[in-house]
């Protein structure tokens, strides 16, 4: 029973991080119809920023995360450019372009940070939750609280503000949004900016629990892709549930068979989801 509790705690903390990873990906996909294969590279760059700030300048968690989450915003213009200047067929071309972007970034990271694996590991404090009798580390708590706060903020933005409603309308149907007078170009830029910020925050957390390296972007992109495909674009609650389900499955598989089978699991899941509802997802994304 002890192990089941611990597995759940681990899965919830991991699932919270995955929600944040997928949220950025999903926002960009929803607003611009670009499935951003360089999303992992954005996350990794912010991870490097958090690592350098934490390791070399002893910057604390809150300030370090706040600063490093801004870094992926430098990619905002290029994503906007890809979404507006992709020739026909747009979905395939935008995939190829973002794939090209990830190749460029991977090589730049190799030159800038070398191929070394890096993790921002601080000895965590352990807390025991009395009634549930489970142990939670400070890293897990930080992951859950930060991710969930960011997700809650975005949820409130989408639900309670006019800008958020306009964003939702843009994600759901571009043409209808345009017809009712929503400035969809600006909304696309805003959604892409929010997506970059989510990726940045996710990166600053990711480096605290996982090793990052220049070629590590693909596994991050795969996780974000899987959860987004499973949940559908721009659906925060479904993203959260999908991320937790995936994190539970991943934690259980890692516990029984070892973490080395994780990528196989996510690949098989993605293929299954694509076979199940790939056409439906892309059919919706073919609207201008």
């Amino acid at each position: 029973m002890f192990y089941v509790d611990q597995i759940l705690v681990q899965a919830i903390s991991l699932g919270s991080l995955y929600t944040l990873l997928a949220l950025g990906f999903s926002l960009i996909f929803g607003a611009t119809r670009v499935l951003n294969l360089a999303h992992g590279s954005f996350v990794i760059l912010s991870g490097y920023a958090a690592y350098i700030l934490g390791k070399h300048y002893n910057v604390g968690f809150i300030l370090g995360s706040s600063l490093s989450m801004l870094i992926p915003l430098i990619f905002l213009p290029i994503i906007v450019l890809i979404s507006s200047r992709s020739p026909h067929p747009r979905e395939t071309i935008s995939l190829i372009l973002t794939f090209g972007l990830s190749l460029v970034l991977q090589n730049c990271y190799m030159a800038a940070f070398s191929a070394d694996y890096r993790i921002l590991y601080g000895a965590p404090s352990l807390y025991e939750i009395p009634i549930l009798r489970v142990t939670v580390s400070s890293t897990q708590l930080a992951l859950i609280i930060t991710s969930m706060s960011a997700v809650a903020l975005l949820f409130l933005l989408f639900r309670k503000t006019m800008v958020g409603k306009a964003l939702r309308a843009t994600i759901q149907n571009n043409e209808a949004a345009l017809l009712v007078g929503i400035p969809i170009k600006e909304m696309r830029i805003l959604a892409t900016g929010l997506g970059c910020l989510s990726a940045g925050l996710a990166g600053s957390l990711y480096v605290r629990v996982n090793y990052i390296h220049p070629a590590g972007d693909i596994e991050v992109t795969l996780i974000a892709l899987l959860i987004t495909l499973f949940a559908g674009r721009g659906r925060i609650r479904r993203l959260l549930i999908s991320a937790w389900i995936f994190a539970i499955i991943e934690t259980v598989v890692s516990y029984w068979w070892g973490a080395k089978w994780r990528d196989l699991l996510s690949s098989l899941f993605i293929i299954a989801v694509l076979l199940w509802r790939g056409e439906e997802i892309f059919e919706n994304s073919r609207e201008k």
Partner: protein
Amino acid sequence: MNLPIHLLAWVIILAFGWIPLVPESVLSVLTTAFFYGSMATAWNIHSLSGAISLGHAAFFGLGAYGFAITASKYGISSWAGMLIGALCAVVYALFWMISINRLRHGSFVLATLVSVEIPRVIIENLDSFTHGSAGIMNLRIPVGIREWYIIMVILAGLLLLIHHQTLFSRLGWGLRAVRDDERTAMAVGVPVEFLRRCTLIVSSFFMGLCGAFYAAMIGFVEPSIVFSLHFSAMPLVLSLFGGREHLYGPLIGGLILYNLDQLLMVPLFPEAHRALYGIAIFITIWFFPKGILAWTKRS
């Protein structure tokens, strides 16, 4: 197609490898350029059916491992091992056929991208059979650089012949119809699925063969190397750059970009020289989407 001129050109290219004055370093760069050009041509045979793959590294890696395991464990002759490697890639292509081949456009691209992870993770974790992430060493075969040059030129020539068929034969026109509008092609009686499957099998076979050649040339295989994104990206970039609808497009793409990479990027940016291929994607798609050979009169 002016056959005598083409044949003469290929004879001259072949003879270049026998000229003793040509330094081995030059031949080495040219051999690799022809190697990448062949890979790109093999990839393009499949992409002419309208299916863009980001997962050909799976065939490449399986070809390399098929050769490595048969040559190192079972003592089968190296050349037979290479053939077995290529057949391993074809077996994986059969898996594609029964699973992801029904997908189209973006879904297909994504499915191919993630399908590379399946053989990579399995090979990485079957330690006792494949030596896991440590890879397999001592695979180099006793063939000099001049011989490799000849092999690569012959491979490129053979692939160009097949490429010519997929572009200009009756089958090629069928493929064009499939690429432009699959439903209409089906309505006028083009065997869409048959053509897609044929191109996939041929493409995977030669991609696997390239993987086996690569393992035999450099002498070792590692999952992180032979299943890397680099081998999925290269054929795509080179074909786009050269021109996907031109007979020599992928090969010329390989000859130009690889040489540009080695002669310009490696001395200037030794750590990040491969970024060139990513930049080439942007430049090609935004400025000359039909490839550089589209500028020539005949295309």
